[in-house]
């Protein structure tokens, strides 16, 4: 018999963007501002009091309705900023919805990060108890599962060593292992499998699979890793701009999702909240061009491209030494290209414009899904940073224009010569 275990009714979540911008407000900043520019400050205050400044509102989620039955494993997919994490955070009661109601019949545990609350100074043993308690296990449960936890993590030898001396792999294994052994009715998982090596990822997926099948547990799983979603989930929710676009069998939803091309979508970078900075100067758009300056809708292995980053200065002042740098991750966990400070070029730039980075080589990265992270600099100060700007696909390509599609994760263009004598 199927019974609803989670009922989500008309959930919406609003953020005030002005609120978010400053990071945190310090009285000190307010005072220095007032002294630097007393007239402007007074005007601004007056406007604020009179309510003339329109707060930018941002609906991270709009009217979400969803019913999930016991034992179902539901994938939640969508492009960055679609509201996946917000939905999970509301379900796990970390943040509250603006409107609507959710009813959950059972014990909920959320795994938005592995090793929440791990303290570097404490030993593995101590951290198992601390972390277990944080994610909602009782001491009794932890003691019962203790041997299984260290065995699954494979850290028996180091159990009484402070975790600050662990390798990052060991750390993640131990952290996941604790989480994997709790027994909630509903488990909420966010992208946590993006850490750790591939072998361990497989082990975790296996464990989660086993858990749902034998214990009839309900899992909500957010991921960019389509393979993992396909393997694990029966059904999928596709979120787009805070709304549910589709709720159906996994295969169908993934196909639909991959049809959405992030390169041609309207850029909503201006309103993105998952950024660090953006108070003075903000990234506003991103697109890819070919070397003739035409926007492209697909990136191919071996093609020649320019990455174009739009920016604007919010106070309309020209910017000195503006520079941009980016990095690329494959399958959301494997760094394949990183910025360095040394390749950074900077410009004295007008308040608004586009920084264009022409890639001199042919695209050396092979078929697959990639994430882009972007940094914006003014002088030595990092003014804006978006970690997961977008996920794009590199399609297979005819690298040498000779009808041969090279199948390798990277390719370097070559020029051979023969030296005799």
């Amino acid at each position, binding site marked *: 018999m199927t019974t609803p275990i989670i009922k989500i009714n008309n959930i919406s979540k609003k*953020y005030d963007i002005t*609120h*978010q911008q400053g990071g*945190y*407000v*310090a*009285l*000190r900043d307010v005072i220095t501002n007032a002294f630097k520019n007393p007239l402007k400050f007074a005007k601004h205050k007056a406007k604020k009091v009179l309510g003339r400044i329109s707060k930018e509102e941002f609906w991270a989620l709009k009217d979400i309705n969803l019913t999930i039955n016991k034992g179902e494993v539901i994938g939640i997919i969508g492009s960055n900023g679609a509201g996946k994490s917000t939905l999970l*955070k*509301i*379900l*796990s*009661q*970390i*943040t*509250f*919805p*603006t*409107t*609507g*109601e*959710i*009813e*959950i*019949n*059972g*014990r*909920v545990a*959320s795994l*938005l*990060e592995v090793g*929440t*609350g791990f*303290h570097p*100074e*404490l030993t593995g043993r*101590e951290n198992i*108890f*601390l972390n277990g*308690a*944080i*994610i*909602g296990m*009782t*001491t009794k449960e932890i003691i019962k599962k203790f041997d299984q936890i260290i065995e699954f993590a494979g850290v028996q030898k180091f159990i009484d060593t402070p975790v600050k001396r662990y390798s990052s792999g060991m750390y993640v294994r131990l952290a996941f292992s604790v989480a994997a052994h709790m027994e909630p009715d509903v488990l909420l998982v966010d992208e946590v499998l993006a850490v750790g090596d591939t072998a361990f990822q497989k082990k975790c997926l296996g464990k989660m699979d086993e858990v749902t099948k034998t214990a009839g547990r309900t899992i909500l799983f957010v991921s960019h890793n389509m393979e993992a979603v396909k393997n694990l989930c029966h059904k999928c929710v596709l979120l787009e701009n805070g709304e549910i676009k589709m709720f159906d069998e996994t295969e169908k939803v993934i196909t639909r999702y991959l049809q959405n091309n992030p390169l041609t979508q309207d850029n909503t970078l201006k309103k993105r909240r998952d950024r660090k900075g953006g108070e003075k100067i903000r990234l506003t758009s991103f697109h890819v061009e070919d070397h003739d300056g035409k926007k492209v809708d697909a990136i191919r292995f071996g093609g020649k491209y320019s990455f174009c980053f739009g920016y604007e200065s919010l106070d309309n002042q020209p910017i000195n030494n503006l520079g941009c740098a980016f990095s690329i991750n494959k399958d959301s966990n494997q760094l394949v290209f990183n910025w360095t400070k040394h390749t950074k070029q900077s410009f004295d730039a007008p308040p608004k414009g586009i920084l264009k980075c022409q890639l001199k080589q042919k695209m050396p990265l092979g078929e697959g899904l990639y994430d882009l992270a972007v940094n914006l600099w003014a002088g030595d100060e990092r003014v804006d940073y978006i970690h997961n700007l977008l996920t794009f696909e590199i399609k297979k390509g005819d690298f040498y224009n000779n009808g041969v599609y090279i199948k390798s994760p990277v390719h370097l263009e070559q020029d051979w010569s023969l030296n005799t004598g």
Partner: protein
Amino acid sequence: MKKKKTIIKPQKTFSFDDIREIWAYKDLLYYFTWRDIKVRYKQTAIGVLWALIQPVSTMIIFSVVFGNFAKIPSDGIPYPIFVYTGLLLWQFFSSSLGAVTSCLVGNQSIITKVYFPRLIIPLSATLTNLVDFAIASVILIIMMFYYGYVPNLLGILILPLLVLISFLAAFGIGLFFASLNVRYRDVRYALPFVMRIMMYVTPVIYPASMVGKYSKILAINPMTGVIKAARAALLGNAPINWLLLIISTAACMILVFFGLIYFKKTERIFADIV
């Protein structure tokens, strides 16, 4: 196992469910406290002795400066033990208040990642300081032997109550500051300065009898009643002033009440703005 039902709604105010929930999470309260104590003295050479050094050295300095040089009266009690009784309670109060104020920001990586009753964090911050207080109390007992003071039975019975009042006062005011600190980090910088002023309007280094007719006003500060009663109970310099103690208790109840209301009101946005 008992089925648990959760309803998630936009608004949430303080109710008795919160207390039940904290009870359900009592293990976590224990682990947080245990973590803070454990981590505090890890990788220090003399470890837990630090809990003694601070109050003892302050006591020595105060005895020399205020007792010897300034000749502040102490109701006929030797100045060192007089000031140490006050300092002990005051430092418990002020360091708890400081810890509670910064506890939400200090634990933000946990707050933004997992749900548990948020009140656990300030509670454990206060409990951690209670342990330091207990350690530093040993010195007071030694001093009482040395100076030959024997507390009366009522005095010993009233001590837990005094500690409880200090605990609640720090917790109540702290809840308010902690919520405020999430939004305005200024609180963290202003607090040490405010605390220093507060110490001088609390009879820590001077006897309350010096203030004369203003002592009723001072009583609104819960620590005044507590410190006065502690001296009366342990050192027998005066009878216990019950009226003063009642005013202090009432003041601290009001502080906890409003602290809780404000904390619960801002709780739902902690994760969004911290």
